[in-house]
């Protein structure tokens, strides 16, 4: 007996009592619809949560210079000066799991504007990619450009706190501020971010090209922004005047400040304080880390067995928390879904048992015209599976429609999940087989003589 013929026989039998078939499959329908809607809404909100966490830098990997050690004395993290902007470029170029890489130099100094002044908690010299890494937008004006970075142009972006403190909330675009007596033109204002997870104000920030901060503000080519090291650095390049004379006598005739500023010496080597890297996605973070490690080993000529001159840190804790929360949520939803499907399956079994009893004569008749026990078994099993699959299909449509409605009316984020759909089909077929087997087996075990005589 061919399979399609069995299916057709089952369809005919179901069509003889469409109302009952509908009610029977309602359980599965609602179950599957609930699964699909839950999964889609769940996936949508989990993606939304992931997105908002990644805006805080969940995919961010930090490359820091390592520790310099001299005669057993460690100088602490960031005390070697081997991490260069070229490393950042190489990471971006050669590590496939890396989406963006931005070198950063840090400074901490006073910012002056007119009669106001402020010391921003963070002052970064970086590239425009920094905004991408931190998922930061410029709400007013524009970001500085790669050309600004190359030319060490004196332009900067201000965070909201700085705008409030220095400009009283007025637009600072095109205005001039002075950082350690270097005049910067404000080209843009960063969007508000609020406090980070440590409670630190993220808007208290000034961003400028790293070349500008490095060469014009901190004025050191071979020094890090390590506080103790930076304290000694005072060979200030200043375009206005040397306000704080304190330089030592040089070996060579000193250039005038104007000369020095106009003809910056070609810099062969510059170190940065950190490189901010984003992986393409959270699962690719380990790959990004191993690729960067291999690349930096090669670039820094670190032989196997030697200690690294850099450290790489990621936000493992944050992403772990995120993934465990998501997993918990998904599992909870899955439990609810399973329960509703089992309830639906019990409904199917119940009605199939009634149906077998009711159709005892039909079973007897089919046996008397030559149906074997396994033909009967197959017929009732296929009936149950067809019921479940049809219910599942309708359930998928209902669930998808429901989640679409939720998206349109409540504006909840929703994500279509092909896995959930595939799983629903498989699960409803499995429920059909599982709960349809017993009634079908019972039908196939009937004695044709008894069945024919059944009233």
């Amino acid at each position, binding site marked *: 007996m061919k399979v399609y013929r069995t299916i057709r026989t089952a369809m*005919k039998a179901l069509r003889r009592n469409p109302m009952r078939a509908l009610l029977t499959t309602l359980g599965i329908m609602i179950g599957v619809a609930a699964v699909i809607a839950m999964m889609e809404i769940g996936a949508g909100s989990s993606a939304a949560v992931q997105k908002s966490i990644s805006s805080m830098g969940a995919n961010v990997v930090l490359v820091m210079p390592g520790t310099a050690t001299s005669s057993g004395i460690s100088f602490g993290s960031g005390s070697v000066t081997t991490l260069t902007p070229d490393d950042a470029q190489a990471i971006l170029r050669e590590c496939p799991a890396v989406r963006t890489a931005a070198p950063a130099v840090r400074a901490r100094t006073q910012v002056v504007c007119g009669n106001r002044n402020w010391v921003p908690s963070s002052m970064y010299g970086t590239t425009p990619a920094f905004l991408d890494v931190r998922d930061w937008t410029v709400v007013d004006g524009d970001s500085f450009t790669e050309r600004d970075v190359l030319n060490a142009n004196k332009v900067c972006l201000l965070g909201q706190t700085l705008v409030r403190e220095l400009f009283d909330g007025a637009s600072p675009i095109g205005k001039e501020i002075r950082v350690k007596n270097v005049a910067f033109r404000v080209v843009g204002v960063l969007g508000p971010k609020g406090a980070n997870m440590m409670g630190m104000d993220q808007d208290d920030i000034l961003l400028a090209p790293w070349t500008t901060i490095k060469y014009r503000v901190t004025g050191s080519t071979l020094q890090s922004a390590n506080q103790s090291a930076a304290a000694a650095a005072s060979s200030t390049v200043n375009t206005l005047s040397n306000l704080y004379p304190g330089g030592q006598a040089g070996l060579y005739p000193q250039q005038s400040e104007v000369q020095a500023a106009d003809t910056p010496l070609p810099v062969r080597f510059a170190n940065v304080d950190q490189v901010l890297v984003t992986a393409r996605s959270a699962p690719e973070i380990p790959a990004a880390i191993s690729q960067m490690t291999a690349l930096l080993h090669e670039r820094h000529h670190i032989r196997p067995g030697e200690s690294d001159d850099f450290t790489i840190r990621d936000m493992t804790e944050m992403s772990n928390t995120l993934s465990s929360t998501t997993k918990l949520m998904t599992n909870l939803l899955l439990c609810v879904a399973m329960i509703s499907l089992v309830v639906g399956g019990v409904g199917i079994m119940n009605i199939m048992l009634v149906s077998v009893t009711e159709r005892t004569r*039909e079973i007897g008749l089919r*046996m008397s*015209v*030559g*149906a074997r*026990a396994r033909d009967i078994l197959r017929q009732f099993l296929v009936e149950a599976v067809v019921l479940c699959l049809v219910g599942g299909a309708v359930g998928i449509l209902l669930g998808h429609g429901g989640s679409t409605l939720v998206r349109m009316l409540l504006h909840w984020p929703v994500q279509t999940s092909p896995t959930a759909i595939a799983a629903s089909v498989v699960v409803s077929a499995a429920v059909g087989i599982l709960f349809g087997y017993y009634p079908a087996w019972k039908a196939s075990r009937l004695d044709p003589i008894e069945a024919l005589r059944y009233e």
Partner: protein
Amino acid sequence: MEFIELHNVYKTYYIGDIDVPVLKGVSLTVARGEMVALMGASGSGKSTLMNILGCLDHPTSGEYWLEGREISRLTADQRAMVRNRQLGFVFQNFNLLPRTSALENVAMPLTYTSDLSDREARHRAREVLVRVGLQDRLDHEPSQLSGGQQQRVAIARALVNHPPLLFADEPTGNLDSHTSEDILRMFKQLNESDGITIIMVTHDAEVARHARRTIHIHDGVIVNGEQTHNPEAGPVGTALGSGDTV
């Protein structure tokens, strides 16, 4: 070897510890093309005999040969195959599938024979329905048909596999006398023109009169003279015309 041979068939039901013997050594021969009525009071064992002849049940002991094949030792699946290919059943209460058209009711047994395409099956079902005179009722459901028409659909269903042997269990029990005549005439016609062997179970002597031979069964043994055998005597083939004739 005759068409049907029953040798010394016993059937005993075991209900708890009590043995209930129903058939006590039945031997019987039916030639191809006969029309036989099987008569007996209720509890006489005629239904049991019918079930054994119809391959729905197997005897406790004894042999049943159908077209030269020993049936009583076949497995359930093999018996299902015999029922499908060689036997047709007509029941007292028609046993049609409700809410299913006459055509599909008739084609139903063909779903258990895999060597016919759907189109062939429908074609064949239509052919038999035409033969029982229901060419204009093909798409009617049982509830839209009269009792006689329903029984004719049932006959068509029994004939759809072209079986050589037809069983009718009280075929006119639910019909009025006029329709009964029609149905019985149809049986006779099938028997005479198509050579189908018909075994008809009935308790109505009027009905049995249509058969050319009547077998009376009483208390598990065949009682009318030439059909009752000593278990040691062996089967006796009986020519047409024995028993009651029309």
